[in-house]
Each structure stands twice: as C-alpha cells, then as structure tokens.
C-alpha cells in the first residue's frame, strides 16, 4: 500500500490539475459563446446572399464564370480545418481520419492537402502526403482578414488551373454538444441555388431590372459568395473546436473529481491503518512492561 505521504501528494497534484481543466473549460465556454455569436450574426447575410444568387441566376439564365467551370482533370485540393491548440478531445484526430479516408477512397485522384491549423501541419509533416500549402495562427479566433487571404489563395489556385476541384473537410457546428465532420465542395461552385429556384416559381415570373447587367453583378457577387462559403466553414470549425474542448475539459474535470474522491478514501484508510498500528504498538509495549 502507498504511504500516507504519497497519497497526499497525489491528491494535491490531481487537485491542481482539476483546477486547470476547470479553468480551461470555462475559457472554452466563453470562447464558444463568442464563436456562436459570430455564426449567428453571420447566417442572415449568408442566407440573403444565397437568395439573391438564386434570383439572379433564374432571372438571367446561365451565366459563365470561372467559378462554375467543371473540369475533367483529377487534381483536387483538400482543405482541412484543424485547430492550433490541442486538448480538445478527438477534434483533430476525427478530421485527420476523415481526410485520410477521403484520400484512400479516391485513389484515382491526385490529391494535394491544404492545411489550416498547427495540429494538421504537425500531423502531416512526417507523413507521405502531398501538401500544397498551410495556414496557421487562427488560434481559435475568427479573423476575417485571414479568411479573405485563404479565399483569395484558393480561388487563385483554382482559376490558374493548378487544381480542378477544391473540397473542404471541417467540423460542422450543429449545437453546443453536437458536431459533425462535414465535406463541402468549394470550387467549382455547385449551382445549388438553381435547385432551390423551383420552389419559388412566383419569383421566376418576375422581371428584374439589373443595374448594370446580370453578368457584371454575378462577377461581383460570386467572389463575395466564395468568401461566405469559406467563412462559414471556418466559423463552424472554430465554434466546434471550442465546443469539443469544453466537453473534453468538462469530462477531465469530472474524472479528476472522481479520482480525488477515490484517493481521499485511500488516504483515510491509510491514516486509519497507521493509527491502528500505532495503538497496537503502544498497547503491546505497555503490556510488555506490565509483565
């Protein structure tokens, strides 16, 4: 059995760990709230933009734009959104597993990886994958400047013909305790807003005035839409990161609590055993004198 001193030491160590995980849980919760706000304040914009694109595309017919170009080539860029920091449970490993799976599922494609977040960079550094580029320093905070930078880089990559398709793998934020790894085809942009159009036939009948012509508006609107897509993926990923971290730290705190309970019990037992021992020694000592 462990000595009383050892047990006391361990209790203290576990207690301070518990304090740290508790704090991290609360920090993650605060950051999650912020990230959630970010998503919520952004959703109306994304939704309205989709509506506008729908109306625009149904009113103007088919529009040619490099973003829509479907190519035959097999070069794909897989963008992976991971975190910069660890201690967030299976958040990053789930992303890696899904990405590896994706690569394995498409042996005919020439897949290049685009890594977002330090964890992905470290993970793939020593592995045999083609890496196109990497971005870091999001550090769990949403930064529109960096999102813009990534979007510009990606559209450049696509338009120049270096890749024929860009796919995102990220963690979709469904609720504070529910996250799902999601895939999203970024470029070429799927004309999904055309499918929606059928539901609203009344608006199709409307004759729009365009100022300037629809093509020009499309050209201006599509880069914004591309930005919106990237922004959604990254905002979701950041919120999920904090969410997973909060859950992971919450269960770590709980485990530490249980461990402390267990150790306290052991400590009490050990204390009692030593008291009993001492008593026995005293009693038997006294008895030896009486003889």
């Amino acid at each position, binding site marked *: 059995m462990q000595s009383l001193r050892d047990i006391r030491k361990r209790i203290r160590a576990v207690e301070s760990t518990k304090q740290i995980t508790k704090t991290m849980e609360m920090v993650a919760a605060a950051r999650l709230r912020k990230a959630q706000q970010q998503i919520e*304040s*952004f959703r*109306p*914009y994304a939704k*309205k*933009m989709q*509506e*506008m694109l729908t*109306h*625009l595309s149904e*009113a103007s017919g088919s529009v040619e734009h490099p973003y829509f170009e479907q190519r035959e080539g097999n070069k794909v860029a897989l963008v992976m959104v991971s975190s910069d920091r660890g201690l967030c449970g299976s958040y990053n490993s789930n992303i890696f597993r899904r990405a590896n799976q994706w690569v394995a599922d498409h042996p005919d494609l020439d897949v290049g990886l685009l890594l977002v977040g330090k964890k992905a960079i470290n993970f793939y550094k020593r592995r045999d994958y083609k890496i196109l580029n990497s971005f870091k320093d999001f550090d769990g905070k949403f930064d*529109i400047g960096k999102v813009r930078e990534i979007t510009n880089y990606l559209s450049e990559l696509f338009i120049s013909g270096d890749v024929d398709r860009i796919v995102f793998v990220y963690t979709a934020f469904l609720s504070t305790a529910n996250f799902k790894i999601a895939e999203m085809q970024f470029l070429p942009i799927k004309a999904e807003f055309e499918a929606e159009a059928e539901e609203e036939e009344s*608006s199709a009948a*409307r*004759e*729009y*005035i*365009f*100022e*300037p012509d*629809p093509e*020009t*508006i499309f050209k*201006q*609107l599509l880069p*914004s839409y591309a930005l*919106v897509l990237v*922004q959604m993926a990254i905002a979701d990923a950041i919120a999920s990161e904090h969410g997973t971290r909060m859950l992971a730290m919450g269960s770590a705190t709980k485990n530490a609590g249980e461990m402390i309970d267990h150790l306290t019990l052991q400590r009490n037992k050990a204390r009692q055993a030593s008291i009993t021992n001492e008593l026995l020694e005293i009693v038997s000592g006294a008895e030896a004198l009486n003889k």
Partner: protein
Amino acid sequence: MFKLSIVSPERVLYEDDVESLVAPGIDGYLGILTNHAPLITSLTTGKIEIRDVHKKEKIAAISQGFLEVSNNTATILADAVEFAEEIDLSRAESALDRAKKRLNMDSGDIDLPRARNALIRAKNRVRLVKQVKQMNR
C-alpha cells in the same frame, strides 16, 4: 411602406418597415419607394438614407454591396455598413490620414486599388459623420 433589411457579414444592421430608401447604386444614387419594380443592382461606397414609417430619417455608411428589391421587400447585402451616429469621428479621421499617407508613400509594394478603396471608404465615413452632426445642430 415596404420591408427593408440591411445585413453585413458582422450583423443585421436594420430590419423593419420603411417609407423610402436611397442607396448608392453603381451608376448613381437610386431612390426606392413602395411598389418599386423588381431590381438587382450592385452598390458602391456611399450613403444610405432610410425614412421609416414614423418619418424619421436614418443615415448609414456603406462600403460596397448589393441591393435587391422585389415584392415590396428590399435587401441590402453590404461588405460593411454602419449608422452614421455609430461612427467614431476621430477613428474615421485617423483611418483617412493613414489611407492618404499610404497612397503618398508611392513605394512599389502597396496594393494600389486596395489603398484607393480604403481612402474612399474613409472619406465617405468622415463626410457622413460631419453631415449628420450638422443636421442635428
């Protein structure tokens, strides 16, 4: 009366019924009243004027965006938008100074269109704040 919503990536700035709207279209300011014909246009940096159902006027600064009108619903998608009274004049002025300086630096490594845009945006904001201050006097 028609419904107006102004949204930017950061937030929903305005969502209510209004009497009229004036927005900076790409080829000049356009006024929207009730029962306007369906319209989609891009907007440039400038001033948005709203007159709500109580005849109260509001002024906002927008830097680029899009406007859609249909079915008595107007939607403005803005890259950035804020009400004039929310703008911090000293901050806007220092942004203007910075933009001017950057354009004057004349070194090869600046992104000229971007610097120009920044200057236009900063000018717009400063102008609107001053305008609103004068109106309230």
